[in-house]
């Protein structure tokens, strides 16, 4: 897991002096005050910060949902700031996989159909290819036996796995997870972390935004934000195994 220290890896994300100002009435709120860092292919990065630190704004910027006021953002080599709305939508569709805290699955819809969703907006996939890719992703997150379960028939952990499969289905350059374990109990959280570590081991780039410092022990790099600035950016030489932590947890009584 020490791949992150090799420097000849491809640059996935490059932020250059990103600032983001919001106008709230008369006042100007500086959510980001000059954030710069790069993330290479295959890194598993935690972005931490308390509420108000600017981590949500940073996540929106990284996810191409928001445009910075100043500075430039390159996603997989593409400058994002000058892009129009529709171009950014297409970029999100091809390069980014989102995992949200509250899963955001379509109600009363099967796992396959939920996972297929990003490919529905990509005209180069036909119905057969969509289905193949969706099944492939669901198998990768360990839900090969629940392909046709509907979202309301699944537990929180299963729903989050479906959401992760949905984030994988378009083979994105980066997976953006926003408090992906925030709604889950400890055991299930570790199960999801195990899954993320597995994806990381397969060489995927993952950014995990959280306010839970414990998560940082299981990722390869940790960026901390405070008041719109990066206050620390450290590499983790001793990545803990989530699978081991899961094994040590007391068994549930059910």
């Amino acid at each position, binding site marked *: 897991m020490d791949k992150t220290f090799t420097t000849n890896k491809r640059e996935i994300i490059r932020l250059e002096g990103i600032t983001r100002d919001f106008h709230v009435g008369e006042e100007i709120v500086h959510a980001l005050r000059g954030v710069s860092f790069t993330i290479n292919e295959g890194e598993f990065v935690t972005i931490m910060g308390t509420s108000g630190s600017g981590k949500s704004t940073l996540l*929106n910027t990284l*996810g191409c*949902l*928001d445009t910075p006021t100043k500075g430039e953002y390159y996603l997989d080599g593409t400058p994002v700031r000058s892009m129009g*709305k*529709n171009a950014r*939508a*297409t970029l*999100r*569709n*091809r390069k980014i996989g*989102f995992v*949200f805290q509250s899963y*955001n699955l*379509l*109600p*009363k*819809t099967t796992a396959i*159909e939920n996972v297929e*969703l*990003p490919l*529905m*907006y*990509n*005209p180069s996939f036909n119905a057969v290819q969509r289905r193949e890719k969706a099944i492939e992703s669901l198998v990768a997150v360990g839900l090969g036996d629940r392909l046709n379960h509907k979202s309301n028939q699944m537990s929180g952990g299963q729903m989050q796995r479906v959401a992760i499969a*949905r984030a994988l289905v378009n083979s994105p350059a980066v997976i953006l997870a926003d408090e992906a374990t925030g709604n889950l109990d400890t055991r299930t959280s570790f199960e999801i972390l195990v899954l993320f570590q597995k994806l990381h081991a397969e060489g995927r780039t993952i950014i995990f935004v959280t306010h839970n410092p414990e998560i940082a022990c299981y990722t390869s790099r940790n960026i901390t934000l405070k008041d719109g600035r990066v206050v620390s950016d450290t590499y983790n030489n001793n990545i803990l195994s989530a699978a081991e932590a899961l094994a040590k947890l007391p068994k549930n009584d059910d």
Partner: protein
Amino acid sequence: MNGTNLIKIALRALANNKLRGFLTMLGIIIGVGSVITMLAIGQGSKKSIQSQISEMGSNMIMIQPGADIRGGVRQDASAMETLKLKDYEDIVNETRYISAVSPSVNSSGQVIFGANNTPSTIYGISPEYLDIRRYKVEEGDMFTEQDIQSAAKVCVVGKTVIDELFKNGENPVGKVIRFNKIPFRIIGTLESKGYNSMGMDQDNLILAPYTTIQKRILAITHLQGLTCSALKEEYTDQAIDEISEILRRNHKLKATDDDDFTIRSQQELSNMLTSTTDMMTVLLAAVAGISLLVGGIGIMNIMYVSVTERTREIGLRMSIGAKGRDILAQFLIESILISVTGGLIGVILGVGASLIVNGVARFPIYIQPWSVFLSFAVCTLTGIFFGWYPAKKAAQLDPIEAIRYE
């Protein structure tokens, strides 16, 4: 994103909310159904009036000597002697838009048979008159051209006259009746036509050769009128032009002179009566159209609720790559699907309801294909129009806020 995918997504969203979708559709179903039923009833009564008129001969044209002024006194039409036999012959020979012409002279008086008598009118006409007025001979025969040449004292009588004169039920054919003391032999009887739409008894008449009436009853050489049939109802105007040209020429009228004859067509009457039912149709359709509008507002209302309820879904779709126009199309297709499905059911329901009205209430109906097409087109447009604003609202949502919407 392609159209098939959009329709799939919209169908799935509707399937997730079947009851709500159906209730929304109900507005459109009732709207379209009532528009079709009301138009069918309106058009049905129009058709029934038109067919009554055409029983009298919808292409009939009547020519009378026109009001003339002599020494400042306007003369009664029957006193005029301007219509001659030559006019009749020229109309027969020279016109292209007229299929049949009959001269007409008439006289009213008492008809007597044995001890019975009744007031009636005797019409002096030619055999073409039967076709023009849509009369049919029931028993016996119509008189012939030869009877006209010889001014034969023969006649064909209507049902009312027979009922009054032959109370014992004997066969009237071959019997001799007297009209103003002149004997006429009955050679045929007419099929009953009943009362016309203005309440006139169409069976109280006696038909005889016009020459007989001219010579033996009225002692005149002119005609009191001419009755013609235009080739078709649509050619009535051309036929009237032809007739008036011939009459003006024969009567040696200068370009500045007024006509000395009057031409009236059944079409005028028909237009007057059908304009009344047209008015009724428009009113009925307007009321039904309002219910279609209410149905449309129902769609708009539900689509707004749906957009608000599915804000997070919209946010998610946008984050994973849906463009504004994809979201717009998705919701628009959803509302069009509601209205088109509702429209289809409404068409079936409207046609069914019309048939029930016809079957149970014996009310004449006529379903015009264009009324079905029109109400279907209107409800599709309703779907687009009332679905547009909610869909636009959905497309303009900010994905950052939408995805975290509680």
